[in-house]
């Protein structure tokens, strides 16, 4: 069939209500809800001597004050989401700490009042006595283990893992050149514009719990709440309404509020709402990116990589609720699009007294890319071969797919690249970048990267044609701005031959679709997109079968075009899709909407029972897509930057992106994903730094001091796309959500190094760091 919508720059159908101020974010939901405030630890590491809530409970407007002892699940460790055999010392926090706090911002008590102001006033009256303990704050300090974050975790090591492909020791020993350096990436924060929020209502008569949560995984939240409260899953409904940006931290669950708000609603018999404020977001919401790499590498006179031996520490933070996915991704993605004949990677995931870590857009990849590209720049420096030439000589070639990297991937499989053309990406990027601009203190940065996307286990979709001819479709994964209502509609519209505007999408609402995993890891287009395709194809097949009886034609001779099922070659012989929906459901009672056509005396007689064995009523289907392995997107970023030698202000003179994520569903949406990703990358590479002091206090927990770029810091970005389809899924798509972020740190490091002739070995950079580096050199 011809695809009309897939690939077209369809303007978003969700825009209208968002632009009119009619979006529905969690804090917009009220219904007389009680409001809450946390008491959080001001210490990064302390023993709790006592908690006294007596005065707080007597404050005006207070309805309840909870500490761990007040909770039936107060002594239960929160779930460890992704266990792994190498995670020998996984630890998760309790909902509310009662003995020890291990990061500043850890929740200690929870106040519910009639208003937020009253809750905040009462929280001030909760008296907690702390005995401070020694603080372990950097990954290096975590590894030195002079103090322990958890008494029962020797060396602060949560997990250790080593993998080797080829014989690294042998390859290094014969390599013409052998070098070693140390590279560092600091923590960053996703900082979605909407913080986190949870609203819950318990209907005592129906015994039904309804939760609105600004989460990236409502299905998992629902599963967890059903287990915790001993309810059938069907009596728990979780909705991620409009979510104001996710970027990773909202895939983390359970944050304490995700249990406490529903619990309080059930206890108190009233809706309860908690909305995070920006300051607490900085310490209470997971962060990422802290790693220290010791990388040794061998190469020949032609600049070819012969071996890489990387040993890195990953800063877990105080707990490991998300397992060791981040260092696994870093280890897997480090070689990127380059051939590394011998590769050994070892990591230790170490505890520190800082906010726990879990994926933030890029998730382990920006640091991996930074290390590999720094290695290539060093090879260029030593051999005198141009940086671009070094990359060209090491890239995997288009005839080498599928390419087995041989290391473990986050889904338990081995990393195997499915398709791509990496040299073409690099060529095109340099062509777009053009000649070096005139002037001093200008540097060029180039980085090529791959991105494992579309990770399983699965997603599903339900598609139904209504008797009106309109189509409704739903999937479990929620939307945080990725245009799900538009792109899923494009996929469904193509299969059913309807206009995109006639397809209404629901995402992230367990009432409409209770199965699935979540929106993360650039996986939505691959998993939910293909599930939509599968379900819509099933509906199309059924429509043809039902219509075939009416049209006295073979189903194979029918097509779905312009909202009708019609005979190929005889466009006048057809019936509207809505009428097919009517006929798909044999009824006794005509209840309107044209359903008289499906009653027993009017419907066309067919032999046997009105519904054949195995046949289901309704023009609807539920389909699933479960990938065997990840799809691997790729890209190349290149830039010219100028760094002012006095103020160290960064001026990005030109920034180009060439990107390949397989078949493109909607170029307008894809462009937005890339542009936004690059901007976030620029922020993370030069402006945003989480400034923890030696006591584990985050000293810049506000937008006044944690500098998210405004428009003034982000240059225009030129983008081109190639489409190397993935052979692994029906739509040939790969993910794109994180691509924009991944190589930005590597590109800017390379460019700044060239501009100022100062070695760049850590990220993020800043004017102060550059000033200091130049003063010392």
């Amino acid at each position: 069939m011809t695809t009309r919508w897939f690939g077209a720059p369809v303007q978003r159908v969700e825009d209208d209500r968002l632009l009119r101020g009619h979006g529905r974010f969690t804090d917009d939901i009220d219904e007389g809800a009680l409001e809450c405030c946390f008491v959080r630890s001001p210490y990064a590491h302390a023993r709790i001597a006592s908690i006294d809530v007596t005065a707080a409970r007597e404050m005006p407007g207070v309805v309840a004050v909870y500490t761990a002892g007040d909770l039936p699940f107060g002594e239960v460790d929160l779930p460890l989401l992704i266990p792994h055999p190498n995670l020998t010392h996984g630890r998760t926090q309790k909902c509310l700490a009662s003995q020890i706090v291990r990061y500043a911002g850890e929740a200690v008590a929870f106040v519910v009042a009639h208003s937020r102001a009253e809750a905040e006033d009462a929280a001030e009256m909760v008296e907690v006595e702390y005995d401070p303990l020694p603080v372990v704050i950097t990954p290096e300090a975590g590894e030195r283990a002079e103090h322990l974050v958890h008494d029962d975790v020797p060396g602060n090591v949560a997990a250790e893992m080593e993998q080797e492909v080829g014989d690294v020791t042998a390859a290094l020993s014969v390599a013409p050149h052998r070098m070693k350096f140390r590279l560092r990436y600091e923590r960053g924060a996703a900082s979605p514009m909407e913080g986190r929020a949870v609203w819950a209502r318990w209907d005592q008569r129906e015994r039904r719990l309804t939760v609105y949560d600004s989460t990236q995984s409502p299905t998992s939240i629902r599963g967890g709440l059903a287990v915790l409260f001993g309810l059938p899953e069907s009596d728990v409904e979780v909705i991620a309404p409009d979510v104001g940006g996710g970027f990773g931290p909202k895939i983390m669950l359970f944050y304490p509020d995700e249990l406490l708000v529903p619990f309080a609603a059930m206890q108190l018999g009233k809706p309860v709402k908690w909305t995070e404020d920006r300051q607490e977001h900085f310490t209470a919401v997971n962060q990422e990116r802290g790693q220290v790499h010791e990388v040794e590498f061998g190469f020949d006179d032609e600049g070819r990589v012969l071996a890489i031996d990387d040993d890195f520490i990953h800063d877990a933070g105080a707990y490991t609720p998300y397992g060791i996915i981040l260092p696994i991704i870093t280890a897997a993605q480090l070689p990127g699009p380059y051939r590394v004949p011998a590769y050994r990677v070892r990591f230790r995931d170490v505890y520190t007294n800082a906010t726990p870590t879990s994926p933030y857009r890029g998730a382990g990849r920006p640091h991996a890319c930074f290390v590999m590209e720094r290695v290539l720049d060093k090879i260029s420096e030593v051999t005198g071969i141009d940086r671009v030439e070094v990359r060209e000589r090491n890239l995997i070639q288009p005839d080498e797919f599928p390419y087995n990297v041989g290391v473990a991937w986050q889904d338990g499989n081995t990393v195997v690249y499915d398709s791509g053309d990496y040299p073409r990406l690099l060529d095109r990027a340099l062509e777009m970048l053009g000649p070096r601009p005139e002037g001093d203190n200008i540097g060029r940065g180039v980085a090529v990267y791959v991105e494992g996307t579309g990770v399983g286990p699965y997603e599903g979709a339900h598609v139904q044609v209504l008797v009106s001819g309109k189509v409704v479709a739903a999937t479990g994964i929620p939307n945080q701005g990725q245009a799900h209502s538009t792109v899923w509609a494009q996929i469904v519209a193509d299969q059913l031959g309807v206009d995109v505007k006639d397809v209404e999408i629901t995402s992230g609402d367990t009432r409409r679709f209770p199965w699935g995993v979540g929106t993360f890891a650039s996986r939505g287009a691959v998993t939910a997109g293909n599930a939509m395709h599968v379900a819509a194809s099933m509906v199309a097949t059924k429509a043809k079968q039902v219509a075939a009886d009416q049209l006295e034609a073979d189903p194979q001779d029918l097509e779905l075009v312009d909202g009708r099922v019609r005979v190929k070659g005889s466009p006048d012989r057809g019936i509207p899709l809505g009428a097919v929906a009517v006929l798909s459901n044999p009824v006794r009672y005509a209840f309107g909407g044209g359903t008289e056509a499906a009653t027993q005396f009017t419907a066309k007689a067919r032999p046997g029972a009105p519904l054949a064995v195995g046949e289901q009523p309704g023009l609807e289907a539920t389909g699933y897509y479960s990938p065997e392995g990840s799809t691997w997107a790729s890209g190349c970023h290149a830039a010219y930057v100028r760094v002012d030698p006095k103020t160290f202000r960064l001026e990005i003179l030109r920034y180009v992106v060439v990107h390949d994520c397989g078949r493109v569903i909607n170029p307008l949406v894809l462009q937005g994903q890339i542009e936004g990703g690059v901007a976030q990358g620029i922020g993370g590479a030069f402006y945003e730094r989480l400034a923890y002091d030696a006591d584990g206090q985050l000293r810049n927990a506000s937008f006044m001091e944690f500098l998210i770029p405004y428009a003034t810091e982000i240059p225009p970005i030129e983008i081109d796309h190639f489409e190397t389809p993935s052979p692994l899924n029906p739509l040939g798509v790969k993910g794109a959500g994180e691509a924009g972020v991944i190589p930005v740190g590597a590109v800017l490091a390379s460019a700044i190094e060239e501009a100022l002739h100062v070695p760049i070995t850590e990220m993020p950079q800043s004017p102060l760091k550059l000033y200091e580096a130049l003063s010392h050199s």
Partner: protein
Amino acid sequence: MKVNGVDHPAPTDVRRLLSDHLRHDLGLTGTHVGCEHGVCGCCTVLLDDAPVRSCLILAVQAEGHDVTTIEGLARDGEALHPVQQAFHECHGLQCGFCTPGFVMSVVGLLAQHPKPTDEQIEEGIAGNLCRCTGYASIRRAVHRAVELNKK
């Protein structure tokens, strides 16, 4: 205080921020609160035609003034305001959380500079944070809004 052309009684709570008053007392939840310390611009509304951060003003300070929120730009059933339309056409929004603030800033900008220079556009949108778009599509939307205003 007049909000979107309609008179409303004076706020009773003197500590109430204008942003909270709009959202929680008047139910105008299109005005969003992203930082509550005047940096992100999500809460931008027009106070007598000038963009202001409603999280830095007490509701009682808006007494006697005209406040316009995102809901006041185009009534239900009416076509989008040119600035809203331009954001739609240029994919100037993703999650939509910062969007009302941006739209109000741009409405204020174009009221002051109907044919803004690139520098004026940069300055006009440089008080609002967006974490999704990278601003490129928002710049395009401002240019498009200028075109739509001409028509």
